[in-house]
């Protein structure tokens, strides 16, 4: 058994003082597609943002390729509001360490940089790759994955449609040469046509050999794509389903809500 690429051990977090997810244990292997499914507002995005280093984890550990990304120990609670804690309290996880390690997070409903053009963004995106090789090949692949972007090459993000923005986000994430890519609801709020186009692109990312964690509300899309489906409910992982016995939409609803939906 090889060592998992990403491992969460007893991870807890949230927006102080509100706890959003508790004791999450998860391991993702280097060749795996993992899907997250769960109701809105139950902490999937917060969990991913914590792994990406945007939010300080409260407790537990995030290990990526054998390296610990967050600080040891439990976060101390804020005891006084009459004090600029930020001056003394260091961040417990650094986004740049996470990116340097090759764990890239593509945000949900991402506006990216509204006043920059597609070309400008894809020019600076490989800076996240640091010394990881293969940026030039990835550029070629991105043109094949998202032919639509070439038409909008010098448009500002502000003028792009939601689907095109999502494509730029994913393209920028891929140009960072990820060792693991986390996509947060890539098909959120898209028209059915664009949703199919984007789903096909996400499917094709598999050919580039990049492992993926993907959060989505579309059951058929998820179950057809991933090796393992993780049900996330009330801030914890409630169930893991392997590729062999993927449920359909109704079965999944039964599992999550006990048939009372």
């Amino acid at each position: 058994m090889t060592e998992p690429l990403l491992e969460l051990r007893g991870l807890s977090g949230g927006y102080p003082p509100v706890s959003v997810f508790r004791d999450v244990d998860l391991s993702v292997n280097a060749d795996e597609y993992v899907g997250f499914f769960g109701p809105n507002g139950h902490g999937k995005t917060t969990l991913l943002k914590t792994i990406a280093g945007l939010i300080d984890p409260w407790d537990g550990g995030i290990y990526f390729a054998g390296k610990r990304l967050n600080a040891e120990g439990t976060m101390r609670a804020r005891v006084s509001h009459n004090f600029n804690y930020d001056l003394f309290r260091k961040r417990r996880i650094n986004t740049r360490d996470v990116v340097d390690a090759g764990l890239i997070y593509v945000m949900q409903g991402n506006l990216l940089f509204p006043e920059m053009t597609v070309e400008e963004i894809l020019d600076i995106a490989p800076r996240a790759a640091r010394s990881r090789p293969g940026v030039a090949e990835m550029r070629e692949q991105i043109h094949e994955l998202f032919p639509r972007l070439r038409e909008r090459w010098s448009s500002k993000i502000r003028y792009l449609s939601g689907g095109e923005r999502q494509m730029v986000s994913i393209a920028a994430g891929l140009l960072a040469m990820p060792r693991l890519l986390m996509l947060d609801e890539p098909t959120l709020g898209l028209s059915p046509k664009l949703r199919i186009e984007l789903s096909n692109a996400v499917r094709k990312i598999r050919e580039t050999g990049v492992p993926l964690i993907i959060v989505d509300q579309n059951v058929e899309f998820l179950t057809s794509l991933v090796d393992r489906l993780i049900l996330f409910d009330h801030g914890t992982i409630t169930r893991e389903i392997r590729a062999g016995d993927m449920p359909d939409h109704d079965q999944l609803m039964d599992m999550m809500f006990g048939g009372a939906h």
Partner: protein
Amino acid sequence: MAFDTFMFILMSGILLGGLYALMATGLAVVWTTLGVFNFAHGTFVMLGAYIAWQVTQSVAGGFGFMIAVVLSILVMFCLGFVLHFALIKPFERNQNVVLLAVISTLAAASIIENSVLLGWGPRDKQIAPPIGSKIDFFGASINTFDFVILGVALLTLFALAVFLRRTTMGRTLRAAAQNREAAELMGLNVPKLFAITLGISAATAALAGIFVGSLRFISPTFGADPLMKSLIVVILGGVARFTSPIYAAFVVGIAESFSAYFLGLYWSPALLFAMMIAVLLIKPEGLFGHRSKTL
């Protein structure tokens, strides 16, 4: 009014506009990137002028004007870079960061101003302009150096615009300005980029300060006027584009020099404030802008 008088007033207005554009762009870049107003901007202008003045003095070796300009810009860039970590970074995770930054930059302005007063004394000083000749411009006799100032100011702004649009470094600066979280997820060192922005702003302020110091006298308190004018320009023009405060700077400069001729020197600030209030009432996002702030 004779044509040569008109030309003279217009040219001095355009010169003022160029200086204001240089000052206001520095302020606008910090506002659009860091999201705070830097009330120490006026003292950056003043300190830049003092550093250049000191370098040209015989005590410090009596270097030429060009060396003074380069040294002053370098020192002010470093000061701006360092001050970001002292004035703004400690509060950046606080939700009242805008208000806290007002206080901390005002404090810095006061400290810099009084340090200059302690170090260089209250007496007025002037940087000797490197070119003393005058040229005849449509009947008006205008200092050659004024044209040089205008040219250098516009060239600097053009170079800054090219840097922000065309170079990877400038593009990462704009990325950090437009969406901080997404910039962090791209692995950009956002605090460093913000510090560089404040450094660039301080460097342009220093350049403007040197030019003002070679046209007028410099004293420890002369930073108040550039700060006020930059604020008026930024509010008047808005920050929707890189160029909006530049257009507004020429409007303000020309309005100021004509009102100084027709209304008198004491009434021209009143006119500028009246213009600013009118713009705030009618088009709050600025004359040359829509409701957005970008770089």
